[in-house]
């Protein structure tokens, strides 16, 4: 514990602040995170009945029931003294962040445990909105059970700040019926995909070739990051320090993405599409190909909301012709965070941790469409052999990290999507200039001086 305390006391920023920090300490009362919220508090599982609150979006299982309730029921069988109440959440990820940050920054003790985006941990850690959960190397038995890149998203300054819960992996969905009808193969490269999409458009069977997410928001950063990786590039290095986007790979990616629209492979409307709009275009039968996360398998296959149920195929994303990298997907997903102000620390830790472990992960993987984070469960033949092919494919996916390691990731991402989006909707432009501008914006963001 003492090592945690000192690491926070002398965080990078505090050190930089140096004398200014000392001078203003009296004014502020508390400047920076000078203490560990876990210190001096019991993490034991309570022996008397307690109630904790879990904030999570509704998670529908394969029968359309609420997966959260099955998980809570199983947890309570294991820990009879702990009752878990479910809290409702705002609809979108960003509004959810707003609600959580205002509540927790204000010292709210509820929710005790909350489900948050895997891009959040450094930002939430930096702003004292999450409980530090120790260094992975101090608990290898627990943390080594997860893919290294998944663990990486939970880290900030060496500590973990959330327990991995489920993964979102991006796939290429296609209209299997149309490919069969015209005797076309499932594309293995982006170039093949573009040709096939154009062919299918020409036949008049679909209005759009390929739909994806190009709206001016985080979702575009996800799309751009993985396609950049297909081209052999990256936004930043693994430590989220060095900016690498201004490269040949960057140019190739940007040109290809805007070319998709210019050539008519994708409609110009993808520049306004987030997941929902792209999903609608595909499940209404208007598009031949769709890039979307794991959930789209269920959404496209549900006859109630989809006109193409039973006619859809899925593969891991293609890559560029001649690229050394394939099977890539931006790592998306959700982690469980513990509120640093919780009054039931022991119970909250037990629950958040249990959700990441074998029993909960197996329930999730066998009764719902959500992809488990625990490597052993994801590789379990019983899980991969299910009707839902995304499980089998997920085990093979290569996960690409967004540069979420910096607490300024939202600004970094904003520099990316606000630069890429106009290129998509306006078409072409000087991509070299755009990349230089994007890199400059990312640099300001990384240094914490961007607005």
């Amino acid at each position, binding site marked *: 514990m003492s090592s945690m305390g000192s690491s926070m006391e002398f965080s990078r920023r505090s050190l930089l602040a140096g004398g200014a*920090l000392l001078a203003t300490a009296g004014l*502020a009362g508390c400047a920076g995170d000078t*203490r560990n919220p876990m210190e001096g508090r019991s993490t034991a599982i309570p022996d008397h009945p307690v109630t904790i609150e879990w904030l999570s979006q509704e998670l529908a299982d394969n029968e359309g029931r609420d997966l959260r309730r099955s998980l809570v029921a199983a947890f309570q069988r294991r820990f009879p003294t702990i009752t878990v109440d479910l809290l409702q959440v705002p609809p979108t990820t960003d509004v959810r962040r707003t609600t959580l940050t205002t509540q927790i920054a204000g010292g709210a003790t509820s929710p005790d445990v909350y489900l948050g985006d895997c891009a959040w941990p450094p930002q939430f850690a930096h702003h004292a909105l999450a409980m530090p959960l120790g260094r992975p190397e101090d608990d290898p038995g627990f943390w080594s059970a997860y893919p290294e890149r998944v663990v990486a998203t939970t880290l900030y300054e060496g500590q973990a700040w959330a327990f991995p819960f489920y993964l979102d992996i991006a796939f290429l969905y296609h209209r299997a019926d149309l490919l069969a009808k015209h005797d076309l193969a499932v594309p293995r490269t982006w170039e093949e995909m573009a040709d096939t999409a154009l062919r299918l458009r020409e036949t008049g069977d679909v209005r759009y070739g390929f739909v994806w997410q190009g709206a001016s928001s985080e979702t575009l950063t996800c799309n751009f990051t993985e396609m950049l990786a297909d081209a052999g590039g990256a936004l930043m290095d693994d430590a989220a320090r060095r900016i690498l986007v201004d490269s040949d790979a960057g140019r190739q990616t940007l040109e290809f993405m805007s070319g998709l629209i210019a050539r008519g492979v994708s409609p110009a409307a993808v520049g306004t599409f987030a997941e929902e709009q792209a999903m609608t275009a595909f499940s209404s039968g208007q598009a031949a190909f769709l890039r979307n996360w794991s959930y789209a398998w269920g959404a496209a296959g549900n006859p109630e909301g989809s006109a193409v149920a039973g006619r859809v195929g899925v593969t891991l994303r293609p890559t560029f012709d001649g690229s050394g990298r394939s099977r890539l997907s931006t790592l998306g997903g959700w982690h469980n965070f513990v509120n640093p102000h919780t009054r039931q620390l022991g119970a909250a830790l037990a629950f958040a941790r249990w959700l990441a472990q074998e029993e909960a992960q197996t329930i999730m993987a066998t009764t719902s469409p959500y992809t488990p984070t625990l490597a052993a469960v994801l590789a379990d033949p019983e899980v991969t052999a299910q009707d839902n092919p995304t499980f089998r494919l997920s085990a093979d996916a290569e996960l690409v990290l967004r540069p979420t390691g910096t607490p300024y990731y939202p600004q970094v991402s904003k520099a990316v999507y606000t630069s890429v989006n106009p290129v998509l909707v306006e078409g072409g432009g000087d991509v070299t200039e755009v990349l230089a501008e994007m890199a400059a914006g990312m640099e300001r963001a990384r240094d914490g001086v961007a607005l």
Partner: protein
Amino acid sequence: MRTTAGEALVPPQRRSPEGMPAGRGGAPDRRDAMQRRMARIGWGYTSPSLLVIGLVTLFPIVFSLVLSFARVRITYDGFAVEALTLGNYVALLGSGDWYYALGFTVLYTVVTVAIELVLGTLAALVLERLGAGRGWIMALLLIPWSMITVVSAQLWAYIYNSTYGVATWVFESLFGTAPLILGRPVSAIAGMMVADIWKTTPFVAIIVLAGLVMLPQDVYEAADVDGAGPWTTFWRVTLPQLRSTIAVAILFRILQAFGVFDLPFVLTGGGPGIATQSLAVMGYKTLFQDLNIGPGAAIAASTGLLVAGACLLFLRAFKAQVGKEDVT
């Protein structure tokens, strides 16, 4: 009370302060004391609500002003001010995005308020002449205004949707091709303005109508006698007398339009790029997505200051033009 002929034409409630009866000099002391006691009782009765207003309005304003001059960090004990600084404002002034947001917000305000004013006044003139159906039509007109903006914005998002939107369908049936309304800067800004004008023109119409029905009829009779046609009557009689009403409508609209948030938030999220990012949206993103508290507070505070300044300037210009007439 002695009045000049000119003053008699001005309704009592609009009389300038100079025309009001002298309340101090001539009144007996006893009445003064009485008034003071009444005032004390008045303050006593209103103090609980003043306290509430202070807590929910003044405190947050002052707090956010302080935050805007501070380097702030969220800690396990809540907000911590690390240092007082002008850096947040310096950052704003050095940010191209902020200038763009300011430009967009000003353009949006000027264009929507101007168009709403013209359309609203026209609607009010028609409404005033309506007989039996006026109540019903007013009720109908108020539907857009009474709708929560987030809801109406969502409706406009459906209308503008590039795959199944009705606007897209109309364009396609007429011209064979449809613009990507929310996907390109110019059309996204125009689309947003249309949604705003649709929603708030009725508000302007109702306010102007209220002013119209209160206009004294004798002036119109006089104009008629002098041989003024309808056009001249409108420009020379109706409009000058409506000035204070219109000023109120403009003020309300400037205040609202300058803080535009829900329309861009729902329709475009500020995109494409940052084309429709208003100051309020930028402030929201800076504060709540980036958790960049100091600069976020600076955006909020400067926006407040700018709109207050704009309103004061407008009022001053307006007063100078209308002379002594009380506009509030």
